[in-house]
C-alpha cells in the first residue's frame, strides 16, 4: 500500500478534529477543546484554518477541482465570521427572537424577547394582536432553518457550563448567537455548492465554477453570510438553490411524487421569504409541458400534488400567522396593504439608484441579466423557465414600498434570484469567452481605458484647480476627483443607463442621479422631513441650475439666486402642500411647481418666512420641479424651503 494512501485515514481524522475544534471555537467565541487554557486567539485560529485548508487540499486534490476551490474558499469566510463578522445587525434581531422563542421557550410569545432587547415599547410592537401576542412582520422560516444550529449552540453552552465556564444559557448569549451565525454561513455556502452542481449539468465545469463564484463573491451574499447572518437572506438563497436543484434534476421526467417533493420544498422556502412563491413558476412550466404532451388530466394530477405539498410546506408560516393574527392566510403583508404596490414599480430605481440599486451596488449581476438574454436566444427551453421567475422577482421587488430594501447591502431582496441569475452569469461567461476568442482586441480596450482615465483625471484635476498642480495628493482624494469628473461628464458607470435618462429628462448632469434619486421629502424612513436646507452640506443633491454658491448671509447658511433657480422635490404621490420659503432680499419671488405658478412671496430685506399653497393638482409622482424666480435684476438669498402637509 503506498504511503500516501496509508496516510489518508490519518489526514481525514485530523481534518475532522480540526473542523470540529474550529466549529466549537466559533460557537464559544474563542475557547475550544484544543485550546483548553483559554480562548483561541486570532493568530491561532487562522493557523488552524490554514492547517485545515492544507488537509482539505491533500484530501481533495485529486478529485473535483470545484469542490476543492469552494471548500478552501469557505475557510476565509469562517475566519471573517469569527474575527470580524456581525451577529444580530439590522432586522436580524427580529428573526433571532423568533428562533429563541420557538426553540427555548417553546412558544411564539415574543414579549419577553422584545423586552430583552429593549424594543417592547416600540410603537409597532407594543400593541398586542387579536390573539394577545406581540406582532412580528418577519417570516418564521429562518428560525426553523436555524433550529439545528441553535440546538448545537445550546449543547455547546451546556457542555461549556458543565466544565465550569460562565456561560449564558438563556438563549440570548454568544453561544446561541454564534451558532445561528455559523448556520447562515453554512447555508450560504451550501447555496453556492448547489448552484455549482446545477450549473455543471448545463455548462462546462470551469464556467459553472466561475458563475457560482461570481454569484457568491461578487454579490451581497457574503455580507449576509458574515456581517448580518441573523437575517433571512443566506437561508433564502440556500432554499432557492435547493428548489432549483430539485427542479432541474427531474425536469424532463417528473411524476406526481416529484412534483410533491418540489412543492414541499417550495412551500418551505416560502416560509423563509414569502416572495419565494414566484419560484413556483419553475414547476408551472413543467406542468404546461405535461399538459401539452401527456394530456390535461395527468397535468392536473401533478398540479394537485404540487399545490397540496406547497401548502404543507408553507404550513409553519401559516401556523405562525394563525397564532399571531388568528388567520391562516393574510390578505396582504403584515407591513400593510401598501407595502407592495403591484401597479407602481420603481424599476430603474431598484436597479440603478445609489440607494441600494441592485446593479449599482452589484455590477456583476449585469453579466447575469445579459447572460439570461443570451441564454434565451440560444437555449430557450432552459432559459424561459429561469427568466420568468427572475423577471417576476425583479418586478415584485421594484413594487415594494421601500424598493431600496431599508438598511441593506446592495438590494438584499434579490437573494432567492441569485441561483437563477447564476445561469445568466454562466451563459454570459460563455458568451464573453467566445467573443474574446473572436475579437481579442476588446480586452485591450478594457486595459487601456483605466490607464487613460487615470492620466486624464490627474491632468484635468490640476487644470481645473481641483488640486494644486505639483502638490502631494492622497490616492483617495485623487480617485474621488477623477470619479467625480467622470460622473459629471458621462454619469457614474454603475448607474448607466438610468442616469443618462435622468440627465435627458431633467437637463441636469448625470452625476446628480446618484445623490438625488432615492431621496424623498416625506416618503417612508430616512426622508427629508419636507426640508430643503439650502447652503447646508449636501444640498447640491436637490438643487438645479440658477443657484449661487453656498455661503453665509446675515447669520444663516443660504444660497443666492438671481433670476430663475430650480430645485427638485421628490414625492411619492401628489398631495396638497404648503411651501414655506425663508428668504431675504428682492421685492417679489414667484414660486412655480412643474411649470405652473403656485404663488408669489414678497420678501423683506431681512430673513423672514413666506408661505404659498401648492395644491395636489400641481404635483406629480417622483421628481417635481420647483422654480423660484426673482424680479428682473433683483437678487435674493434663500435659507431653506419647507414643504408641509396641511394639518
Amino acid at each position, binding site marked *: 500500500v503506498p504511503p500516501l494512501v496509508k496516510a489518508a485515514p490519518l489526514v481525514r481524522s485530523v481534518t475532522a478534529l480540526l473542523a470540529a475544534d474550529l466549529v466549537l471555537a466559533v460557537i464559544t467565541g474563542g475557547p475550544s477543546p484544543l485550546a483548553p487554557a483559554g480562548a483561541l486567539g486570532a493568530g491561532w485560529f487562522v493557523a488552524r484554518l490554514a492547517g485545515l485548508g492544507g488537509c482539505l487540499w491533500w484530501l481533495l486534490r485529486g478529485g473535483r477541482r470545484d469542490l476543492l476551490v469552494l471548500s478552501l474558499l469557505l475557510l476565509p469566510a469562517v475566519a471573517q465570521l469569527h474575527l*470580524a463578522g456581525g451577529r444580530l445587525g439590522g432586522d436580524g434581531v427580529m428573526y433571532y427572537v423568533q428562533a429563541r422563542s420557538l426553540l427555548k421557550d417553546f412558544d411564539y410569545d415574543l414579549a419577553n424577547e422584545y423586552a430583552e432587547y429593549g424594543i417592547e415599547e416600540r410603537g409597532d410592537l407594543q400593541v398586542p394582536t387579536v390573539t394577545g401576542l406581540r406582532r412580528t412582520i418577519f417570516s418564521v422560516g429562518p428560525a426553523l432553518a436555524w433550529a439545528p444550529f441553535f440546538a448545537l449552540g445550546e449543547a455547546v453552552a451546556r457542555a461549556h457550563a458543565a466544565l465550569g465556564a460562565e456561560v449564558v444559557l438563556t438563549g440570548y448569549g454568544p453561544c446561541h448567537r454564534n451558532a445561528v451565525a455559523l448556520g447562515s454561513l453554512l447555508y450560504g455556502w451550501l447555496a453556492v455548492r448547489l448552484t455549482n452542481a446545477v450549473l455543471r449539468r448545463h455548462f462546462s465545469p470551469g464556467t459553472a465554477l*466561475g458563475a457560482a*463564484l*461570481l454569484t457568491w*463573491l*461578487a454579490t451581497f451574499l*457574503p*455580507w449576509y453570510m458574515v*456581517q448580518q447572518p441573523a437575517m433571512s437572506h443566506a437561508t433564502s438563497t440556500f432554499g432557492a438553490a435547493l428548489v432549483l436543484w430539485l427542479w432541474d434534476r427531474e425536469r424532463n421526467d417528473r411524476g406526481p411524487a416529484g412534483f410533491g417533493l418540489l412543492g414541499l420544498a417550495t412551500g418551505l422556502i416560502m416560509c423563509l421569504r414569502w416572495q419565494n412563491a414566484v419560484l413556483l413558476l419553475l414547476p408551472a412550466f413543467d406542468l404546461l409541458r405535461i399538459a401539452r404532451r401527456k394530456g390535461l388530466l395527468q397535468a392536473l394530477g401533478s398540479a394537485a400534488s404540487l399545490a397540496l405539498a406547497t401548502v404543507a410546506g408553507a404550513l409553519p408560516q401559516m401556523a405562525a400567522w394563525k397564532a399571531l393574527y388568528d388567520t391562516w392566510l393574510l390578505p396582504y403583508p403584515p407591513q400593510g396593504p401598501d407595502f407592495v404596490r403591484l401597479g407602481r414599480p420603481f424599476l430603474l430605481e431598484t436597479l440603478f*439608484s*445609489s440607494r441600494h440599486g441592485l446593479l449599482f*451596488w452589484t*455590477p*456583476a449581476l449585469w453579466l447575469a441579466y445579459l447572460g439570461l438574454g443570451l441564454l434565451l436566444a440560444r437555449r430557450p427551453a432552459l432559459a424561459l423557465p429561469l427568466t420568468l421567475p427572475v423577471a417576476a422577482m425583479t418586478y415584485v421587488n421594484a413594487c415594494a414600498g421601500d424598493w431600496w430594501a*431599508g438598511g*441593506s*447591502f*446592495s438590494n438584499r431582496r434579490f437573494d432567492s434570484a441569485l441561483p437563477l441569475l447564476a445561469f445568466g452569469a454562466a451563459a454570459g461567461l460563455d458568451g*464573453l*469567452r467566445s467573443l*474574446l476568442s473572436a475579437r*481579442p*482586441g476588446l*480586452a*485591450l480596450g*478594457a*486595459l*487601456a481605458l483605466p*490607464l*487613460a482615465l*487615470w*492620466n*486624464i483625471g*490627474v*491632468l484635468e484635476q490640476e*487644470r481645473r484647480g481641483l488640486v494644486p498642480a*505639483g*502638490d*502631494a*495628493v*492622497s*490616492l*483617495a*482624494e*485623487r*480617485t*474621488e476627483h*477623477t*470619479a*467625480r469628473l467622470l*460622473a459629471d461628464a458621462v454619469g*457614474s458607470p454603475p*448607474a448607466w443607463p438610468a442616469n443618462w435618462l435622468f440627465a435627458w429628462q431633467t437637463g441636469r448632469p448625470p*452625476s446628480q442621479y*446618484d*445623490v438625488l*434619486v*432615492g*431621496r424623498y421629502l416625506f416618503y417612508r*424612513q430616512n426622508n427629508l422631513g419636507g426640508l430643503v436646507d439650502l447652503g447646508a452640506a449636501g444640498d447640491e443633491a436637490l438643487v438645479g441650475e440658477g443657484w449661487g454658491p453656498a455661503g453665509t448671509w446675515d447669520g444663516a447658511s443660504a444660497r443666492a439666486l438671481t433670476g430663475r433657480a430650480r430645485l427638485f422635490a421628490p414625492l411619492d404621490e401628489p398631495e396638497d402642500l404648503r411651501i414655506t420659503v425663508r428668504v431675504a432680499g428682492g421685492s417679489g419671488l414667484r414660486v412655480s411647481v412643474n411649470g405652473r405658478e403656485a404663488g408669489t412671496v414678497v420678501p423683506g430685506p431681512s430673513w423672514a418666512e413666506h408661505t404659498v399653497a401648492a395644491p395636489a393638482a400641481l404635483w406629480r409622482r417622483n421628481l417635481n420641479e420647483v422654480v423660484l424666480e426673482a424680479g428682473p435684476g433683483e437678487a435674493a438669498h434663500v435659507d431653506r424651503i419647507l414643504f408641509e402637509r396641511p394639518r
Partner: protein
Amino acid sequence: LSAVSLLLVTAGLVLVLRRALVGAPRPAAFLGTGLLLLGTPLFRALTGDLPLDFAARFALAAVLVEAARGRLGPAALALGPLGVACLVPPAIPPGPSLDALFSSSAGVLHRSPALWLGLAGLALEARARRAGAVPALSGLALVLLLAPARVEAALPLCGSGLVAALARLREVVAVRPERALLAGGATLVAWNFLLMEQTRRNLVPRDDTVPFSTLAANAADLASRPLGNPLSWPAAWAFAWRFGAPPQRYDEVAGRALPGGRLAIGDPGPGRPLAGDSWGPRRVREGSACREPLGVARVLLPRGSEAPAALALRATGGTLEVALNDGPATSWTFGPVGERRTAAWAAWRRGLNTLALSGGACVVELRIEELPGAP
C-alpha cells in the same frame, strides 16, 4: 502656440503609428498610439495647455527614434532620447530620484501608469530578442531614471512599448480568453469586498443615497491601506521602511512643500499628513490651537537643502523632547505659550526629515528658520 504644439504632437504620433503598423496588428497599433496620447502628458495637447518645448521635444525624439531605427543604429536609440531631453533647451539631469518617478506630486509613473505598460512591452520585446528592443528599453529607462521631468523625450519609445504590450496581450487573450475573464471577475469581487468593508466601517450611509465618487474614494483608501498605493510602489515601501510610517502616507507627503517653513500643529490644515497622527485632541490655550504628542509624535519636515537651519517651536504648559533624524534630543520646558529655538542643526537632510517630539507640552507650531545666505 497651442496649435503648433498640437501639430508637433500629431506629427510625432503619426511617426509612432506608422512604425507600429509595420509589425503589430492594427487594433494594437491604433490603441497603443491612442493610449500614448490619452494615457501620458501628451493629453494636454488636446486641452490646449501643452508647452511648446514639451511638444517640440516629443516630435524631435520621434524623428530621432525613427532615424535611429534606420540608419543611426542602436546607440542612437538608447542615448538619443536622453540627449533630446537634456539639450532642448539645455538642462542637466538631476540624477535618479524615487519621488520623480513615484510621488503623487510629480512622479511620472504615478501620474501616467501607462508608462509602466510601455516599459513592460519593451521588456517583452527584449525578452523575445526582437531587433532594437534592448536599446529602446534602455532609452526609455535612461530618460525615466535621469530626466523624468522631461519624459516626453522617451514617449515615442514608450509608444512602441505600448503597442508591443497590447499586441502581446491580444495574442494571449485570443488563445486563453478565460484569463481575461478571470481578471475581470477578480476586479468585480475586489470591488464588492471593498464596498462591503466601507459599509461595515460605516464610511457610507446605511440607508441613503451615496455618490459614486465617495464609493470610489473609500475603496481606493481601503485598498491602499495595507501596502500603499500600487502606483507608488516601490517608493512607498522604501518610505515606510525609512520613516516607520504607513506606506499609504507616502502619497500625501512626498513632494509636499512647507510654505514659509511653518507647520501648524493645532490646526495643521493641508499640512496634516506631515504632522502625522500621533497627536492628542485639539486644545485652545491662551488663544492658540495646540495638540499634545501621544507618546512619540513623528513629524515629517521637507527641506530643499541640507544646509544647517534652526528649528523654532511654539508650545505651552510642559516639557518637550525634540530630536531631529534620530539625533540627540533637546529638552525644553514651556510655561505659557512661548517659543524656543534651537541652534543651527547640521543633521538636516535634503527631502524629508523626521522630527520626534515627546512630552506633555501642547505644541502650537513648528518653524524651520533658514540661516542668512542659505540656499
